[in-house]
């Protein structure tokens, strides 16, 4: 649908990264779906969680272009996850040590 070769080339140069990102995300999703559908071994959730984390990092760094942003934005992108960590850790301190 794009006109000249020139335009197609420019377009591809700019779209290569988003397309590769989407491809990577789909591949990782594929792993997770396969694991979820087959449940090949116990504690497979650890692997699934790691894959999901990798997908999140991919979106942050590539789709949302955090890696091109100044340090301040990088900090803001990361700090929320740190705070989620506080919320989870301190709550689990209670639940995991209940007798």
């Amino acid at each position: 649908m794009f006109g000249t070769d020139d335009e197609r080339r420019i377009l591809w140069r700019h779209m290569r990264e988003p397309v590769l990102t989407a491809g990577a995300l789909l591949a990782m999703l594929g792993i997770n779906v396969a694991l979820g559908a087959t449940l090949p071994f116990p504690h497979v959730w650890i692997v699934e969680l790691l894959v999901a984390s990798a997908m999140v990092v991919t979106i942050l760094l590539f789709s949302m272009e955090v890696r091109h942003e100044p340090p301040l934005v990088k900090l803001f992108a990361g700090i929320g996850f740190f705070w989620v960590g506080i919320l989870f850790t301190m709550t689990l301190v209670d639940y995991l040590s209940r007798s």
Partner: protein
Amino acid sequence: MSMGAAETPVGVKLVSHFATVEQQKRAAVLGMWAWLLTELLLFAGLFLTALILRLLHPEAVQEAARHLKFWIGATNTVVLIGSSLTMSGAIQLSRLGWPRGMVRFMLATAALGTLFLGLKGYEYYADYQEHMMPFLGDRPYELKDSPPSRLFVNLYYVATSLHGLHLMTGITILLVMTWQASRPGFLAAHQNRIEIFGLYWHFIDLIWILAFPILYVLNR
């Protein structure tokens, strides 16, 4: 047809209380990230609740999770990843100053978002048919032998409808912006709006990337 034959000027119009355009753009990006922080913690509360339910009632949560529509969820994830791609495309073209292509990508993004909501709606309908809506007091519940499973299923509705609400908001804003962007002069004055909105859209995608495994996959 040609997309970029007449490249339009790209830029951001200075609002009076800022000193420079650079400052204005930085403020907008930081503002959106600050907002996304709050979105993350909002959903984190729900994910934490899911985790606690899993710890308290492992079998019931597993049984409930097996009744969710795993394949619809997976398809929806693909749809959202696709919409992220088209959104990235819109951002790239906005930087190039190709407004018509950009508008098409934006429409495609909105369409994929709507497709997601449609599939979600179908999923809810199927759940309804299968008596998997325990919060409806006057309707029998499929897993009534396992009362704690209600909690997880209900939490699934809270989480997915909250996410759906965010998506609906996103689609509305996107359509309004598409309408604005289809008129001349938009990219010259407000190019960064596309980027800022793109951050929001990707983040809604990110939330779903987390919600799908947490609700559908991990507890199977």
